[in-house]
């Protein structure tokens, strides 16, 4: 089996410490040279067409940029304040508020580790201060942070859409209800645990605090309205929506929140104010944010571009078709198939960065899913939820590393702390996998039934 050799090579290279992007690219090139007469020039062409041929992927740098502008300083604080005002007065309120804050931050950023850093660096210390154990706090954040890729906008969903040619808009909408559900389940579990353990509650701050905190946070939260509203209103494409979101976040961070740029320090107004306003374009904070977002874009897109080379190899060798035939002739029904997909992704997700994994696995399982009559959007959400779980399971769970760093705990302790909440995510995965309507109801309602062409 050549295909087994190919994947063994990818995993082997990764394990000795080769960057993921290089492992994918090099294995594909070696495989191509061994088994076909494809030229190296065609590989270079595939690499370039990752950018030229995938307009959808262009949304990723813009979403990253919007999220970087939104993460400069105060937005996380404002969201947390609002979350505490709303749910803080329940037993275990601070932990529930952390989950709620993660959900809201997920709606501003498309990445899970970013969510853990932004929210976790503030609330873990806060929870410890009012008497929660550090393990409890870290476990909650580690799990809730995974919502970053399920609640739109989500970079992983953009990648899935690019790999399978489904609509980004539909994917985003499909993530809304599962996202709310996962957050709700986590909060319920925390509440039950808090009542049982008699965890502390925050004092009720009153409706005025809720309104005030909401007003303060609303400038940031409006971002998600612009993105979703813009896409579903047909005003702009998802890529344009991302660019508009980035510009919006830039203006809010500079002029409304003053978390960055020339207005961060209070100073003289008057005639100079116009000049200061203009100086946002060359201010060092602007450059720094652009550079940070650029760096992340380079890292992520280099993986995706190389995963696309591997995808190209797989389709060239007709491997998806072979797997489809093998699976169908083995008599796999939809349920068995979904179990296999779940297991495959859970294992893969422990070794690989979610976007790269999706690019590779999606074309392998997509044709089978269509043949078996599984909805492509539903499949996409299943994959995203699997990635979430992959992020919190050892050995290479991304969120585990990040939480360990943010909370100042050892990896092993974080794994132990996250484990009980992992059970809830598994329960959630089962619901999402076998109740397709959770994912497909909202997009069908908003955008009409889907036309499956493949």
């Amino acid at each position: 089996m050549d295909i087994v050799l190919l994947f063994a090579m990818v995993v082997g290279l990764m394990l000795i410490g080769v960057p993921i992007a290089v492992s994918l690219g090099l294995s594909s090139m070696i495989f191509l040279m061994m088994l076909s007469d494809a030229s190296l020039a065609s590989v270079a062409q595939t690499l370039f067409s990752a950018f030229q041929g995938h307009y959808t992927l262009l949304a990723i740098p813009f979403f990253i940029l919007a999220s970087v502008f939104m993460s400069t300083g105060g937005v996380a604080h404002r969201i947390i304040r609002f979350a505490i005002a709303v749910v803080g007065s329940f037993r275990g309120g601070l932990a529930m508020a952390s989950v709620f804050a993660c959900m809201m931050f997920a709606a501003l950023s498309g990445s899970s580790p970013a969510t853990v850093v932004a929210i976790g660096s503030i609330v873990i210390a806060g929870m410890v201060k009012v008497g929660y154990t550090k393990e409890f706090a870290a476990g909650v954040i580690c799990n809730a942070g995974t919502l970053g890729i399920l609640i739109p906008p989500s970079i992983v969903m953009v990648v899935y859409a690019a790999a399978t040619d489904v609509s980004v808009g539909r994917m985003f909408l499909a993530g809304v209800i599962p996202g709310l559900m996962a957050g709700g389940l986590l909060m319920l579990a925390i509440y039950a645990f808090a009542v049982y353990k008699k965890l502390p509650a925050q004092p009720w701050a009153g409706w005025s605090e809720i309104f005030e905190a909401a007003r303060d946070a609303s400038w940031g939260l409006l971002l998600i309205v612009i993105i979703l509203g813009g896409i579903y209103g047909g005003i702009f494409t998802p890529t344009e929506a991302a660019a508009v979101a980035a510009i919006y976040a830039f203006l809010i961070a500079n002029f409304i929140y003053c978390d960055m740029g020339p207005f961060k320090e209070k100073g003289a107004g008057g005639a100079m104010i116009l000049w200061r306003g203009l100086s946002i374009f060359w201010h060092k904070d602007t450059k720094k944010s652009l550079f940070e977002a650029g760096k992340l874009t380079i890292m992520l897109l280099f993986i995706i571009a190389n995963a696309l080379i591997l995808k190209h190899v797989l389709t060239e060798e007709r491997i998806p078709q072979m797997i489809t035939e093998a699976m169908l002739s083995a008599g796999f029904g939809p349920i068995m198939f979904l179990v296999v997909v779940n297991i495959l992704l859970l294992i893969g997700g422990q070794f690989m960065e979610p976007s790269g994994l999706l690019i590779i696995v999606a074309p392998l399982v997509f044709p089978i899913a269509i043949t078996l009559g599984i909805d492509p959007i539903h499949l996409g959400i299943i994959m995203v939820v699997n990635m979430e779980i992959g992020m919190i399971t050892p050995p290479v769970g991304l969120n585990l590393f990040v939480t360990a760093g943010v909370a100042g705990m050892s990896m092993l302790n974080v794994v132990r702390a996250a484990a009980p909440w992992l059970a809830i995510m598994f329960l959630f995965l089962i619901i999402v996998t076998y109740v397709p309507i959770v994912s497909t109801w909202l997009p069908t309602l908003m955008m009409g039934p889907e036309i499956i062409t493949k």
Partner: protein
Amino acid sequence: MHHEPTSRLGQVIDDIEETSIALCLGLMTLITFANVVARYVMNSNILWALELTVFLFAWLVLMGASYAVKKHIHIGVDVVLNAVSPGPRKILAILSVAACLAFSILLLIGSWNYWYPFITERAWLETEDIPMPGMFMFLADWFNEGERYEKVPRFIPYLALPLGMALLTFRFLQVGWQIITGKLDKIIASHEVEEEIEQVRAQAEDKREDL
């Protein structure tokens, strides 16, 4: 985790690379935004906006990949590396640099083979929409037998491939040398927010000192 360049030259090159990355992304965002504005306010599209953005995107990532090698930003799996003792770790690191070099050299050859026709027998091939600025028209004399370009010729955007891969090869060689001389023990980062976590930790330390 800070890899400050030691020499003055290194500092200048860092600055150039970082500014280009920021500028590239900034331009992409502004052009795409301007196109939306043009459509709704002036009822017309900027014809070349999409194509130019896509090419900037390609340049950003293909050229940026080498910067990411220099700053150890590319992520990978480091469980095995962390589990073994320094001796074997060095061997593994040298092996992985060798793999990286194989990758970048193969791609460099491929990129050159792909790009070369675009500047020789197919130098007349133009991009779809991006108009050719007059000041670069000397390229027409050099490569296109004097025939003027209406649009930017394709060998310009595609240049990102050979150039990017050459730079990548150079940076891998550099990192390889650092590993052999023992200045570095691995070429990968374990996740995308390593720097942010360093900052969070540094802040926590500061607070502890304040108390």
